């Protein structure tokens, strides 16, 4: 019989150390992320077996309007041993603690993969008229670990939040990732990764190179340039941009934990900024997080050039995965989101489904009211 797990708040340093001891964790689970989400109260909690910290989570407490009750939110977390077939022993002390803190419900996103599809399968799915959603395509793999987590969460009374259609329910359930190691865990070569991309991507990378696009890793002072281009992109593509201060806060918070954790990338052509991105890396997992591109000079393919530079950088840093983040589940060629999927799919790699976000109502009455409030807010 192993020592039972206990849970208590931990210091930022303990939290950092636990994450550093893991191969990877979502950047949304790093203690630094708390300062990005300053409007919510944050807490680092740790699981202990005896004196040893064996798990950690960043909890964001979102207050319900007017009452002192909170939704305890653990985005893409917690960081625990999800392969354990006794998840109840991990989750029970967590829920007890969060309840004591005034949580009326707990929401989490187990960082567990449930299904994978190859780029070819996604491409064929988009081309196939009868296929509307990624789930209609037979996956390469349904993971036993993922299914076991889902079965246990059902058994433990958690409720899966539907993510059907778009990005509506918090963090995306479907992501696109380029594996940077082979099946045996050995690093892939640049040539191999490049060969995995579709012809258009390879041609565009070459084109950018020939046109003289130069990609450089920037620093904090370059955030302003990134942001100017990002505001321009937002206007063109009709989304609401975040303020510069958001990115500055994110940069400071993440860079303070690890100097390589957040990067600003700039692609220039003859002095003009044609593309800019923000990349994040935690352990062996590298993310493409935000991107911007100019409307002028699209023909020099700055976006492809900057992605390729980020991928090479991730390979050099020993990353196992290059993550292009969310895609929608739709494979309907008439859907406006499909262009984004096609761009990401061109990198080769895999579409990956995670277990999604799950809620555990602690106070059923307030939870119901909260859902009504969300529904009315639209």
């Amino acid at each position, binding site marked *: 019989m192993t020592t039972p797990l206990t849970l208590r708040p931990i210091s930022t340093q303990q939290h950092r150390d636990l994450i550093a001891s893991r191969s990877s964790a979502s950047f949304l689970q790093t203690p630094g992320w708390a300062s990005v989400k300053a409007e919510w109260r944050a807490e680092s909690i740790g699981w202990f077996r005896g004196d040893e910290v064996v798990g950690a989570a960043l909890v964001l407490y979102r207050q319900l309007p007017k009452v002192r009750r909170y939704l305890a939110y653990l985005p893409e977390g917690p960081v625990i041993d999800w392969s354990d077939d006794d998840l109840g022993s991990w989750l029970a002390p967590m829920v007890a603690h969060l309840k004591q803190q005034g949580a009326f419900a707990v929401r989490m996103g187990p960082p567990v993969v449930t299904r994978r599809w190859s780029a070819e399968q996604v491409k064929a799915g988009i081309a196939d008229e009868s296929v509307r959603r990624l*789930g*209609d*395509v037979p*996956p390469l793999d349904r993971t*036993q670990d993922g*299914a*076991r987590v*889902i*079965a246990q969460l*059902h058994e433990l009374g958690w409720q899966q939040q539907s993510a059907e259609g778009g990005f509506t329910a918090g963090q995306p359930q479907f992501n696109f990732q380029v594996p940077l190691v082979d099946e045996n865990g050995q690093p892939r070569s640049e040539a191999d990764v490049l060969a995995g991309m579709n012809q258009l991507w390879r041609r565009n990378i070459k084109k950018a190179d020939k046109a003289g696009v130069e990609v450089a890793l920037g620093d904090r002072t370059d955030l302003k340039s990134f942001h100017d281009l990002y505001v321009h992109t937002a206007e063109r593509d009709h989304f609401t941009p975040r303020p510069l201060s958001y990115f500055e806060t994110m940069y400071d918070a993440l860079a303070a934990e690890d100097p390589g954790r957040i990067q600003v990338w700039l692609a220039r052509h003859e002095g003009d900024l044609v593309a800019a991105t923000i990349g994040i890396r935690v352990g062996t997992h590298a993310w493409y997080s935000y991107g911007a591109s100019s409307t002028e000079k699209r023909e020099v393919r700055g976006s492809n050039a900057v992605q390729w530079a980020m991928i090479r950088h991730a390979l050099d840093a020993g990353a196992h995965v290059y993550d292009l983040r969310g895609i929608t589940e739709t494979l309907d060629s008439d859907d406006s989101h499909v262009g984004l999927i096609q761009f990401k799919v061109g990198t080769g790699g895999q579409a990956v489904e995670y277990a999604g976000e799950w809620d555990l109502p602690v106070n059923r009455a307030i939870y119901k009211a909260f859902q009504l409030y969300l529904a009315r807010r639209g």
Partner: protein
Amino acid sequence: MSLSLTVDGERWRSHLLRTVRTHPGIVPVAKGNGYGLSVARLARRAQWLADHVDDTGAAVDMIAVGTYDEVAEAASRYAGDLLVLTPWRPFGAALDLDARISSRVVHTVSRPDDLTALREHDPDARFVLEQLTSMLRHGMTRRDLAAAATALGPGRSGLRGVAMHLPLNTTSHLGEVSRLINDVVASGLPTRTVFVSHLTEAELGRLATTYPDFTVRPRIGTDLWLGDRGALSVTATVLDVHEVERGDTFGYRGRSAPKQGHIVVVSGGTAHGIGLEAPTGDQSLKARAATLARGGLDAVGFVRSPFSIDGKQRLFAEPPHMQASMLFVPSGARVPRVGEDIEVRVRFTATDFDRVVIA
């Protein structure tokens, strides 16, 4: 002289072909009284469906029987695999299978211990693992399945899939089926075949798109054999007619006629299942009130019978006998002549017909 089931053969066969065509992977169920048609006849018909694969595009490579005692009856008339729905137990008829037939049998295993025992009894046994559903009848939990997966290992074994027996009358089975399929994945069992029952066509369609990597095999009985009710008619022969005045006594129990009319004696009695009320499963208040009312009628007067004359359901003059029933026809109504056939409404699963005529 008999209680007969007459089948419009042309119409029935085309319904069978249509059902098989729209349910690829179908496992026809032939059990119990054969839905009134007998297991033997259904097994023969299943073979006929298998022989029409060019027409339907669906191979009928397996049928399901209810018990081990039914295996022999089906096996001599149908050439494919025989899935036994009653779970295998280390005792009883399951152990007495004829060796010539046992290689065609697919067992249902619902307890981890039985898996071990079955494989000891017959190392070549083929089987499906039944999952515990909300019915809580037979079946294995997620952890049982995981234990079975460990026992079987990743290599080839007799495992032919998992089976789930779902309850009737629920709003939708999809939530439960999704959880059960997820449990199969979680268990690590090396199979992607699922045998299901009682799913609507829409639900089967949704399953096929949601689990394109799974083979879903619907077990279908009622909707296959009795799905086109218009092709089936049940009749009883009028055997005798007696005129009675009010107060006349008649029958085994010496009842007296409540008013002037006729006692009509028809074929069909308790031996056929007539008058033995099978619970309908309808739990509405109205249905329960109706059951109570029928019980009350029984005590003081006549009970409604399943026999109807000229479209009007007639009352039992007294409880049915073994092979015949006495009906009361009040004066004023047409009296059927001896030898005439009248209509009967029965539950097919609870009726044994004297004759089945496939026209």
